[in-house]
């Protein structure tokens, strides 16, 4: 083991003793910062000036999405609502996996008010959801299914049943200070359908509103207190949807006939997801910072080949695989430290600029390093730069020529990133999921549908994307080790 420690010291001495390399390595910091500032300075939004676009403010004080059709009546005091979901049908044959219909108990009909709901979804079975961020899984049933919500004080408990006789508890939520009288009823909501528009050389994605039509029966409201009225009222906040008739004679999204309720709605109930990922935007500079990492990674090995110094190295350490591993380790640690400085600096310097350009609360919550996804993105940006440097070392050892190796690695990133916006969506997804550029996915902090975005850096899940780059790096190193062992030095 001491032998490997000596090798690490030797390689570290090599790395730190060439002034041009030190400067090149440190150049990753201003390069990253420069592109982040350029991007941040050139980006802007006026979303905060248009609160109607933003959605209501939820119980946690942040914007939420509250688009649904809610057919309700008041319920005084403790009590429960029961209903059986019969069918769940999307229009035009499309059912979103997260379309939902079921029963709901709300503080009020005010958008953004507190709620608990039991629902059936086509893709995720029975769920108990509350207050826009709570989501508890029930059975896998997609209907017919009996659902029940019971209010006891501020606590609402969700149940499901196959027959309306034996009930399973799904979970309970505390809705804080509920008023004495709440609104209970039936609801329906569905996220839109992904639409990809491909014109010559470019594509854009959007969402077409879709209605989900739920049918329910056996609707019962039981209360410990006398009920004010038993009249059903419709509160439809469906988004972007042209209202049309459901059933035979209705002009609205709600009909009732012989105890069967038909409720149609579009939109979603849940957290508000900003269209722009502010953290990702502030870290975008790694696209330029990687150039410095490529140069250092490649030169760390090719400069030895160029001058024949590799023979001195391999004569001093005949176990060549270990030499490469030592080089990769030293380079990895050095580039991670520099990468982290670059990433933190880009994050903290660019954030205020983005905020002053409109990317501020409430539409865009201020990202904090204490948030898991934000920390993952900032550390991930440094890891991305590290992996790029080590990948470059591997490619440098394979090709043994600085120019060829630098070109090869840079070409795997920069031109692709420029071209990828002009590719058809499937081609762009292929590039961003299977080439080393997939590593840029780690900059995401917002959970988006990776199939439904035209944003190249969001086309793969963050850690999976970084994993793709890591796999390329490991493969390049493995090939390099194999080659340096069998080649004449």
């Amino acid at each position, binding site marked *: 083991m*001491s*032998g490997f420690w*000596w*090798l690490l*010291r*030797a*390689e570290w*001495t*090599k790395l730190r*003793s*060439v*002034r*041009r*390399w030190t400067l090149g390595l440190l150049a990753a910091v201003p390069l990253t910062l420069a592109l982040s500032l350029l991007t941040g300075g050139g980006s802007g939004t006026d979303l905060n000036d248009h609160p109607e676009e933003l959605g209501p403010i939820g119980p946690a004080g942040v914007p939420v999405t509250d688009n649904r059709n809610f057919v309700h009546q008041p319920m005084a005091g403790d009590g429960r609502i029961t209903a059986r979901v019969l069918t769940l049908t999307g229009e035009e044959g499309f059912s979103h996996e997260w379309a939902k219909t079921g029963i709901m108990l709300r503080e009020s009909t005010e958008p953004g008010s507190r709620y608990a709901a039991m629902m059936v979804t086509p893709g995720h079975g029975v769920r108990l959801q509350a207050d826009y961020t709570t989501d508890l899984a029930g059975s896998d049933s997609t209907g017919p299914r009996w659902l029940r919500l019971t209010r006891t004080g501020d606590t609402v408990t969700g149940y499901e049943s196959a027959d309306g006789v034996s009930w399973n508890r799904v979970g309970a939520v505390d809705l804080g200070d509920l008023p004495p009288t709440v609104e209970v009823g039936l609801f329906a909501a569905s996220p839109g359908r992904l639409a990809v528009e491909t014109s010559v050389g470019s594509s854009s994605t959007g969402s077409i509103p879709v209605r989900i039509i739920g049918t329910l029966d056996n609707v019962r409201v039981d209360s410990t207190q006398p009920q004010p009225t038993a009249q059903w009222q419709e509160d439809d906040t469906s988004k972007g949807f042209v209202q049309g008739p459901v059933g035979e004679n209705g002009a609205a999204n709600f009909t009732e006939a012989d105890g069967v309720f038909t409720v149609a709605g579009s939109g979603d109930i849940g957290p508000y997801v900003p269209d722009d990922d502010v953290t990702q935007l502030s870290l975008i500079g790694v696209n330029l910072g990687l150039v410095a990492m490529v140069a250092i990674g490649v030169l760390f090995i090719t*400069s*030895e080949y160029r*001058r*024949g*110094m590799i*023979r*001195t190295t*391999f*004569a*001093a*350490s*005949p176990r060549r695989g270990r030499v490469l591993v030592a080089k990769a380790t030293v380079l990895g640690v050095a580039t991670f430290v520099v990468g982290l400085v670059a990433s933190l600096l880009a994050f903290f310097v660019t954030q205020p600029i983005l905020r002053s350009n409109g990317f501020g609360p409430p539409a865009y919550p201020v990202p904090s390093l204490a948030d898991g996804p934000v920390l993952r993105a900032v550390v991930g940006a440094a890891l991305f730069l590290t992996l790029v440097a080590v990948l470059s070392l591997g490619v440098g050892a394979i090709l043994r020529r600085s120019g060829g190796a630098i070109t090869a690695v840079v070409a795997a990133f920069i031109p692709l990133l420029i071209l990828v916006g002009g590719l058809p969506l499937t081609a762009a997804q292929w590039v961003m999921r299977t080439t080393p550029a997939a590593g840029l996915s780690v900059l995401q902090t917002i959970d988006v549908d990776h199939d439904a975005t035209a944003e190249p850096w969001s086309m793969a899940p963050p850690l999976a994307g970084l994993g793709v780059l890591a796999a390329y790096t490991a493969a390049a190193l493995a090939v390099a080790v194999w080659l340096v062992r*069998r080649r*004449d*030095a």
Partner: protein
Amino acid sequence: MQATIEVRSLHKRYGSTVAVDDLSFTVSPGQVTGFVGPNGAGKSTTMRMILGLDAPDRGTALVGGRPYRALRHPLHQVGALLDAAAVHPGRRARDHLLWLAHSHGMPARRVDEVIEQVGLAPAARRRAGGFSLGMRQRLGIAGALLGDPPVLMFDEPVNGLDPEGIRWIRGLLRALAAEGRAVLVSSHLMSELEDTADHLVVIGRGRVVADTSVPELLAAASEDRVVLRTSKRSEAITVLANAGGTVAATGPNTLTVSGLPAERIVALLSEHRLPFSEVSPHRASLEEAYMELTRDAIEFGAGS
């Protein structure tokens, strides 16, 4: 560990070119072994194979009885200068030696010692890019000495050195051998090794053409030849050739005769009343001997 290098039946091809062809020789402790041959004869290739850098197609090269790649701390067993230019120009001389030292857990103090030993102390903190070839040679030699190894190999160490440097390196090589180390020094010029090497391995076209001590090589090259000075050159040629000698005119008044002993030549010249002012045994220079040997090797190679 024995201070030896043993090369046995080494073969190495690069494509269709045979660089080293059935090469065998031994470098013994306590003497300087000259490794001589024209450029392209295979000296550097052989040295790279000894160091485990290039893999031979056949044959073995052992250092102290073991293949180089099996050595655990090779710098303490073999010190080598292969190419003085193999230094990053942006790195200070001392840092270049420091990474080598670190690779074997040697302290920085050892680096300062070898820098002192090769006379680079004033330039230790300068970047190697500004070094003359002679300074780089000294830096490379310092690297070879770093691990205090019993076996040393230097590939063309005299290249680029000024006369003072040449004198210094000859002294160094002699001193290293006197300490009992095995020293292998290559050169394409025999004259560089004339006063330094105890033993010579001469190669041409990848083959050993002589593996001998310096006096033996000189004796072999001088054998049977007599230098004659006479004012009647053409008559002398006729007389001596008729008597069975091989005569070459080497100057306006001088002849070199082989195949006839000196006494017989004197007798023949006296008999024919031909004047002569000098008859002496020829003393070949090492350079001549070398030229002779390598020319044969090249002719042999071309004819086969």
